[in-house]
């Protein structure tokens, strides 16, 4: 517990020491949402599409933190020289990652809620607030499943190093596209929607829209089932993370690459 708390602490309180990060973490998603809402207005879309964009755009802040603050973290720790300290300390890497997951999840949830609040205020978007408790259930399941996926990815990034990092380009706009952050994913095609549901954020965004959007929302999977899938996802990803961490550590120790930088 001390490890989890110790690693979660800088994720929550570290940002207070660098307020500019909070500003940029919130500003960039808000700018993106504003741009897409104006595009929707340019297409003469119905007003409910703006609420789709607000929900989708706000959730993407979490995805970026999962990729850059979780999946890449061990690799950055290696480059910064902290990884050997982690490994020689009397704790396990999985507890350290769990701490990052709690701390990062809490901090990013606050960013995401801030992005949502600012964007809703700017465009006067209204939501079905009577379903707030359903939204909270979906949101928490989505955050946990995403961070669990981030935990699994972190050992892969560490193992494959720079060559894997290069594919991070695919974690930006391509995920915006595949998660249906600015359009209802099942409106395009049900098979396409099901395929994209492999990424937990797609399910999270779809579920939140089902319970929060005032008008009828085109979907294929009920939010309760989506929540269940995300919880199963989290469980499987955590198991997988434990396995990949052990595998990565063992193979890196054998090859002597565990603390080898610039690889």
């Amino acid at each position, binding site marked *: 517990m001390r490890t989890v708390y110790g690693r979660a602490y800088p994720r929550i309180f570290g940002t207070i020491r660098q307020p500019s990060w909070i500003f940029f973490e919130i500003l*960039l998603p808000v700018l993106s949402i504003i741009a897409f809402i104006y595009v929707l207005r340019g297409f003469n879309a119905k007003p409910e599409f703006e609420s789709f964009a607000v929900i989708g755009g706000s959730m993407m802040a979490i995805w970026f933190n999962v990729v850059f603050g979780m999946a890449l973290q061990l690799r950055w720790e290696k480059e910064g020289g902290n990884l050997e300290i982690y490994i020689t300390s009397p704790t396990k890497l999985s507890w350290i990652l769990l701490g990052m997951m709690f701390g990062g999840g809490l901090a990013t949830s606050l960013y995401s809620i801030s992005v949502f609040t600012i964007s809703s205020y700017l465009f006067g978007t209204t939501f079905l607030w009577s379903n707030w408790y359903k939204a909270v259930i979906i949101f928490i399941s989505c955050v946990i499943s995403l961070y669990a996926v981030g935990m699994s990815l972190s050992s892969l990034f560490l193992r494959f190093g720079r060559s894997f990092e290069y594919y991070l380009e*695919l974690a930006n*706009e391509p995920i915006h596209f595949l998660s249906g952050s600015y*359009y209802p994913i099942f409106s395009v095609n049900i098979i396409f929607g099901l395929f994209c549901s492999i990424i937990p954020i797609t399910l999270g965004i779809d579920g939140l829209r089902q319970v929060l959007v005032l008008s009828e929302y085109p979907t294929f999977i009920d939010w309760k089932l989506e929540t269940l899938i995300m919880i199963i996802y989290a469980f499987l990803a955590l198991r997988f993370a434990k396995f990949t961490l052990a595998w990565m550590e063992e193979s890196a120790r054998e090859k002597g690459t565990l603390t080898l930088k610039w690889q």
Partner: protein
Amino acid sequence: MAIKKRNLRKGIYSSFLIGWRIETNWGKPLSVLLVRTARPISSALILSFMYSITSQGTQKENLLWVLIGISTWGFVQNQVEFMYWAIVSEREWLRNIKNVIISPTPFIVYLTGRSSAGLPFGLFSFAVILTTSNLLLNLGIKLSNIYFHYLFLAIVLSFIILFFLGLLTAGITLSTPKYPIGVGEALVGVLYLISGSIVRPEILPEILQKISLNLPLSHLINLYRYALSPSFRTYAYNWIDLFSTGLIFSIFGYLIYSYSFYRARANGKIDQQTMY
């Protein structure tokens, strides 16, 4: 030491090569191009899906307007990002910025070479987005209708104007070591909104409309539209707006860069590492 012409040529060439190799991670050119262009292509796909769901295919001119805009955004993303990323990577990660500055190649030449490496990515994404969307969405762009001389001019002017925009972001990045990535991304993000790439300036609030009309990027993207489709040739293209805003913006970008470079050196910020 005097800077010779030889230094400039070699400097441009080697910094282009460094830019290309670092940004492509020594990968195969085709796979690199595909990965790097995945971002603008995905943005084009998002816009196409948004269009098909909301407009049901009734306002094709709107879609064409937006897709030409997003196809040109690859130039901005690659060239400008390469410039400020060069500062961030040399200062924070590779910790090599001092060596670059004391080398016989001027720093601005180094940045020019590094950012030029983004041009092939921009051209590739521009061609791929327009060709595929024209084929799949039947946008009506015909080779016989394209003003190729305008298109060529637009590409050349993009390179020049984006170079100065890159210098502006590089200058700001140099003098703000605590916020190295956010500043550049925020500037590009704001331009994405107000430069008329995907959002029509006339639907923006009045103050943003005025800013948009005074940005060379807005006129440049309109030049691409003018060159590519007769739908956007209702009026003759206004070259004066493009050249006047482009000139003012370029001088402004250069001055900001020069001043920031000087201040960063004077205040010891040039090699200040803050990533922790």
